[in-house]
């Protein structure tokens, strides 16, 4: 099995913040907006270096989305920053009309996504955001898996014309992808080739998928691991190629099974190559307070849950 080394645990939001610092230096059109969460979004360096290109909007996310839409008129590339919950559900109509339908080049950057936000509880843990955002016509949806990938994704979306939803998280997690990776929007990454089952993971679940694959290898099961960082547009060709080889698939994400990556994969398979699939995702539930590790365990979002799903789906082949 391909070995991946944790280069030292880091939060994905710091990948975003560090990329913003870099973009501040290289792309004069990049501007940032924040709704009273500068520390959480790790953009203080960008602000210090580019005070004129930063807009503190206060606790007013709807206004932030509208201002971002307006800033594109005149050629700016606005990056909005707040928690995923306040980046999506709270402002869905503003995004829908002023950004998506209007085709504005806004980058909606959402931290603290999913259940690993932890102790603050369900009011702040959004598990529906991928679904909401992928349903918007023209919206690109990206959920990187570690610090390095988040940094690369942030750099890449600055050069992409059109609205983007970039989803990342709060906790420090394994940082295992290449430092200077080329991030290609819409391109799946083959992390490990296998023949018995395909595990397709996004975000924090990618590292868990690699642990699961290693454990499965020790039990004589060859698992192919694919990292989908771009949920929309989906790299259907890579998905189909893999499942045609393995004959079954487990999808893994820190999101409700309704509306998430798993559903996008299921639709692709149903249309083109019906295949047994198991979903590692939350089961149409809200989260709760707890540590990220406790919550991932309780809500079935770790390597053990992936392993269990693999055994289940392989029986259905």
């Amino acid at each position: 099995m391909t070995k991946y080394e944790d280069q030292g645990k880091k939060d994905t939001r710091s990948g975003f913040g560090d990329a913003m610092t870099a973009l501040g230096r290289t792309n004069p059109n990049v501007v940032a907006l924040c709704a009273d969460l500068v520390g959480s979004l790790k953009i203080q360096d960008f602000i210090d270096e580019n005070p004129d290109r930063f807009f503190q909007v206060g606790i007013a996310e709807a206004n932030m989305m509208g201002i971002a839409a307006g800033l594109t008129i005149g050629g700016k590339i606005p990056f909005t920053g707040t928690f995923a919950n306040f980046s999506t559900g709270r402002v869905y109509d503003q995004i829908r009309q002023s950004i998506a339908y209007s085709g504005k080049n806004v980058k909606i950057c959402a931290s603290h996504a999913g259940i690993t936000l932890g102790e603050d509880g369900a009011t702040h843990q959004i598990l529906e955001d991928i679904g909401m955002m992928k349903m918007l016509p023209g919206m690109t949806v990206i959920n990187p898996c570690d610090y390095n990938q988040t940094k690369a994704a942030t750099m890449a979306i600055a050069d992409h014309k059109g609205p983007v939803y970039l989803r990342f998280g709060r906790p420090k997690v394994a940082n295992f992808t290449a430092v200077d990776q080329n991030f290609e929007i819409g391109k799946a990454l083959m992390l490990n080739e296998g023949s018995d089952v395909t595990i397709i993971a996004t975000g924090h679940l990618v590292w868990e998928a690699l642990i699961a694959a290693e454990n499965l290898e020790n039990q004589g099961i060859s698992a192919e691991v694919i990292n989908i960082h771009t949920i929309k547009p989906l790299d259907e060709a890579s998905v189909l190629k893999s499942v045609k080889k393995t004959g079954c698939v487990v999808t893994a994400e820190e999101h409700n099974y309704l509306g998430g990556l798993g559903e996008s994969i299921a639709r692709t398979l149903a249309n083109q190559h019906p295949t047994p699939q198991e979903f590692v995702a939350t089961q149409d539930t809200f989260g709760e307070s707890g540590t990220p590790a406790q919550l991932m365990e309780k809500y079935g979002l770790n390597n053990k849950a992936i392993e269990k799903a693999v055994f289940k789906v392989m029986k259905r082949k």
Partner: protein
Amino acid sequence: MLTQKIAPTFAPHKLAIGMPKLEDLQQIVVQTRRDILRMVHKVNSGHPGGSLGCTEFFVALYHEIMQLKDGFDMDGIGEDLFFLSNGHISPVFYSVLARKGYFPVEELNTFRLIDSRLQGHPTTHEGLPGVRVASGSLGQGMSVAIGAALAKKLNGDDHLIFSLHGDGELQEGQNWEAIMYASGNKVDNLIATIDRNGQQIDGPTEKVLPLGNVKEKFEVFGWDVLEIANGNDLKAVIAGLKEAKSRTGKGKPVCIVMDTVMGHGVDFMMHTHAWHGKAPNDEQLETALAQNPETLGDY
């Protein structure tokens, strides 16, 4: 029933050059009212009331006040920009854009029809020149206008941003986020006009959800506010907009509270919310058009 005539003789840009006379502008106002009525009548849908009430404002803005480049590009660098927040008054917006030369006036014939660029509410989605953001879901335009104003400042472009908002629309909370932001951040290249017609779909604004003193509300939020007492008096509208322009660049966003009469120019549509979103029938159209005789040629 009136037959539709094409008016290829109308040369829109001619009127924009030099100083148009008030009478010339008044002719455009009347023709715009005809356009509005005919557009909504043809498809038996659309919002004539607010459109008719804001006709003088639009004509003044596009033909007298705003500095505009020839043609249309989305970024609009080096010209004044306008954002319509209460997108349902699209008929007046479309008529004025067409007669200003942004697209052929004949295209007004396609309002609200399938495959048209003239959607029920304005959108950039179909690429209609002159429109820079979709609007219709209310309360969003001021934020967008602020963003465009900030972009102008970043670009060192000293042109202005104009926006129009319905008074009922101020019931949407996002406006107050935007109003707070604009003064707190000295967005002084923005002139936001409130169409204070006192009407909304369900009735008078003060009955549906009282707005109270709009001028004072903006003032305590830190805006420089002026009033246009009769927003259907073209001369007063032009004077008010010129006064507003003179107050920009002084550290405060500028608000115009403009009193208008919904349905102005058609006697049976005035002073009621009944025509907010209702089209006239054949007979009503004839009466309404008779009160607004053709000036520049119907499309």
